[in-house]
Structures are given as C-alpha cells and as structure tokens.
C-alpha cells in the first residue's frame, strides 16, 4: 500500500486504508420529475430512455438518473412511477435538456404521465412547452394551484404538469476504489452503488453507478477540455507518476450528484463503508477521491470528515 498518509493517524474502514484527501464538487442546478405509467414495465422503459446518455455534463449536457422507484400510493395519479433527478451546470441547459427528454422519451412512451417532483419559485418547463404537440386540441386544468396539460395521443391522452422547479445543488461528489483485482473492485463497486441507491436526493449517473474513465481537466489535444487521468490508470504503472503501487490492478470511481452537500457527503460515507465492508483489504488497496487541487469546485468533501 503506497497511499501517502498526510496525518500520523491512519484512516481505515474495515481494514481498508482511506487517503486523507478530498473530493471536489461543483455548484449545479437540479430538478426532480415524477414519471408514471400504466404498469412497471412502461415506467422502466420510459425512464431508461429519459435518463439515457445522461452520465456527464462533459458531453451529455446533463447528469440524470432514477432517484428511486415509487409505489402507486406515492404518485400523483396512483400509478407506479419513478422519481428522476437531473443536474446541469446552468438553469438554461437544464430547461433545454428536460424539455427534449420529456418530449422524446416520455411523451412518446405508451401510457406515461409526467409530474413535478419539486416545489419552488424557479421553474423548469414541462408541459408548458410540450403542449404545442396537441396542435390546438390540448387543454389544461389547474388543480390545487398546479397546472396540468392534457395532450391527446394515440393511446388516450398524455398528462403532463406544466412546470417543475429547480434548485441549487451539488454535482461531482466522488470516491475512487483502488482494487487488487478487477473482480474484487467490481464487487466493491456493486456494494457501493447498491447502498447508495435507496438514499433520497442523490444519484450516481454513470452506468451501474460507476465510471472507469476518471478524467483530468485539459488535454494535449486542444479540442478536448477533459482527458484520461493517467495518474489513475494502472496500465500505465511505471510510465507516469502514480500515487499507488503495482498491487493496484483496477480502479473505479463512484460519482455522486446530490440536492444538498449533506446528502452528497452522506452518500459518500455510505458508499465507501459498503465497499470496504464487502471486500475488505483483500479486495481493496485503498480508497481515495478526485480533485483538481481545490481550485475549480466550491465544495470539498474531505474523506476524514465524511467518514467521521
């Protein structure tokens, strides 16, 4: 183990060393929508489409994932549903992405309906823009102070709340699992994401909740503003400076977006503890976090504080 301790007291969870470093996260804009459908299959199909290609703002414009499944008694129209959280760097980008995804992935899917999942004064349009698809046959109702649009479609009508709200949020909370083997780090990764999944207010937007392509800012190629973080690529061991030894065979990064810094910190703790307890020091060489020296993101999640 060559993770460099910065304090004399070693930080350890279930025998796995934790580096005294911090995850650097950013201010983002977030929203929540509630998607429902006739049955769980159509909820899943539509949600999968809506959150597809929503892993990173670097090229997707938005980070979006299912927050949790909702039972019929938890949804506005009494049908099965999901809560979806979406994060973007600006309100304008969030508005654009949500409208596009709602139009192409929810409106198009049989039996679905879409509702606001947040209250607030700053709005993100949903049915407010989609209503024009109704070509004059759309109609609206104000119920309990909230406006809903009804758009006639081939299986009946698409019900869509006019707007949801957006709030300030945090994107880019993270930790890296340094594994002794690919199998073990994947096992630890699964334990992490399974533990984080039930938590309210957070998502892990990458496939399976994890990414293998942790990036650094910039590139030798001028067109790119992010590129592979060679310091964390075990296959380049010996070629570039790396903060770990050759016992590390594979690394995965769990990236967490959350509605509040507290929720991100809690999810990081839950995820790290789950991974460490699942595979222990026989599976993980250590846990660290990604940052840019603290100069880019306002939110610094120090692992010793997160786990404290």
């Amino acid at each position, binding site marked *: 183990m060559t993770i460099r301790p910065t304090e004399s007291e070693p930080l350890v969870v279930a025998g796995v060393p934790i580096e005294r470093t911090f995850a650097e996260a950013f201010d983002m804009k977030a929203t929540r929508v509630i998607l429902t459908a006739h049955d769980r299959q159509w909820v899943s199909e539509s949600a999968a489409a809506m959150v597809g290609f929503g892993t990173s703002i670097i090229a997707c414009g938005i980070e979006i994932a299912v927050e949790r499944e909702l039972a019929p008694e938890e949804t*506005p129209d009494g*049908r099965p549903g999901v809560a979806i959280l979406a994060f973007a760097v600006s309100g304008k980008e969030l508005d654009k992405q949500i409208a596009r995804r709602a139009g192409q992935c929810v409106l198009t899917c049989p039996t679905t309906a879409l509702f606001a999942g947040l209250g607030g004064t700053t709005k993100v349009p949903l049915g407010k823009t989609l209503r024009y698809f109704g070509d004059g046959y759309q*109609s609206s*109702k*104000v119920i*309990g102070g909230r406006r809903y649009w*009804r758009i006639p479609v081939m299986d*009946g*009508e698409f019900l869509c709340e006019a707007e949801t709200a957006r709030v300030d949020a945090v994107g880019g909370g993270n930790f890296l699992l340094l594994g002794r083997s690919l199998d073990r780090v994947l096992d630890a990764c699964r334990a992490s994401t399974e533990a984080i999944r039930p938590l309210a207010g957070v998502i892990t937007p990458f496939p399976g909740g994890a990414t293998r392509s942790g990036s650094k800012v910039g590139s030798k190629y001028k067109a790119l503003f992010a590129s592979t973080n060679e310091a964390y690529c075990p296959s380049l061991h010996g070629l570039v400076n790396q903060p770990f030894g050759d016992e590390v065979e594979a690394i995965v990064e769990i990236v967490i977006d959350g509605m509040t810094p507290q929720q991100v910190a809690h999810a990081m703790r839950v995820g790290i503890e789950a991974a460490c307890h699942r595979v222990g020091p026989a599976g993980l060489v250590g846990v660290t976090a990604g940052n840019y020296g603290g100069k880019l993101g306002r939110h610094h999640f120090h692992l010793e504080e997160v786990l404290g």
Partner: protein
Amino acid sequence: MNGLSLRLKHDPGVELDARSISSELFALGRDEVRCCPLKTIGGRGMILLGDLFDIDDAPTQHLQLAGDLRRFHGIGTGWSAGDLRVDGPVGDAFCSGMSGGTATLAGSARLRACQQLRGGSVTIDGNVGDDLGAPYVGRVSGMSGGTVVVRGAAGRYAGFRMRRGTIIILGDCEGGLGLEMVAGTLIVGGSARGEVGASMNRGTIILGHPAEFSEICFTRPRECRLGIARLIADQLPEEAASIAKMLRGPIWRRLGDLSAGGKGEIWTGVNA
C-alpha cells in the same frame, strides 16, 4: 382594525347595496366602519353600517356577519384576502368579483353568486339562485379562477360562460348548466335538468347522474380512464365522495358542443 364581527340588529326594510361590506373594512377604524354607508337600491337614501349592526372585534383578518341578510346585495364584492363568514341567508351577487381569501356562507345566496370570481375559495352551505359564477352583465366570459363549493342546489345557468376555476354543486341544478362555457371545471353531484353544456367551447362538466344531451351537439360517449380525473378526485371535498369514486374508475366522455365548434367535454359515470 384587524377583524370585525357584524350582527344584524333589525331588518333594514329596504333592499341595500352592500358592496362596501368587503375586505376593505379591515383597513378602517371602528368609527369609520360604523359610518360606512350602505346605499338603498331604487332609492336615494343610505343607512350607516353602525345603525344596522352591532359591531365587535373578531380574529385578525376575519369578517363575521350574522343575521337574515337577504336584503343585502353584493356582500363580499371584490374580496381579496382574509376570511369572510356569514351565518344566515344573503341577497344577490355574493362574493362578486372576489380575487382571494376564503368565504363561507352558512345559508343560501340569491342570484349571481360568485359572478366574475377571479380567485379564492367560496363555500355555500345552502342553495344558490341563477347565474352562479356568471359574467357581469355585458362581459364575454364569467368566472376566471377560484373554487366554489355549493352544498345545496343551484338555479339556472350555473357556470354560464365560466372561463377558469372550479364549481362544485353537490345538489341539483336547474336548466342551462354550463351554457356557453369557455373553460374551467363544473361538477354536479345531483341531477342536472334540461340541456347540459349547450354551446360550450371548452372546459369540463362532470355529472354524477345521467342528464340530457343533444345527439347532434355532442359525440357519442366513449369509455376512458383519464389521469386528470384521478387528480380532480383527490381534490374534491368529502361530501363529494360519490363523484370522487366515479372519477377513479372508468368514465364516459362526450365532446362538444359540436354545433358551436366546441372542444369541451362532459364526463358521466355511466353510459346514459
């Protein structure tokens, strides 16, 4: 002054324009309230509020009236904030042009109750006369927001030209329900006599009992389940439980009025 209680001392003997009994009284001092004039209708006289009512304090932003107020017309006109409660019957144009706050009438109202309502919530325990939620004379559209619940019956032309908002009538309705309705939601728990939704343009009429429809003015009924119906059901008062139950199941939907080029809809619980 924060709140007011007005108890009628005696019958005024004449019909009175009572539009000054409104939320604007909250801004007046006790003496100013006593000297507030009520004009007689059809005459040139006026009676001071203090001559007709015992005036007392009430909780903040509450105006409470008690007595037989059938000769008082326009009570609650332009009501914008706070709670209005009336114990006893009132005259015409109750809560006319109201824009906010709440009003509760433990009694019946005569003609044109809630005409040109713009917002707020009105509950009437008794019956209402003709033209509930209708426009002011000469206006193209009527009620444009807010919610009205009538626990009793309604006269003719309920929801005449209503444009937004919700009217819930738990009792029966006379003819002309939803006549020339522009939009909004009109719910009737009892029977609706005569033709329903004539010349309606948009909006939704929800009927708890079968009614009379012109076959050439409305489409044939189609059975459907609508998500919006479930949302409406969840907002209905407890007394409308039978309508709520109907809305949670399949409903029968007609579109029209075709003769007026309308895209309105009428929902019923049975194909009748």
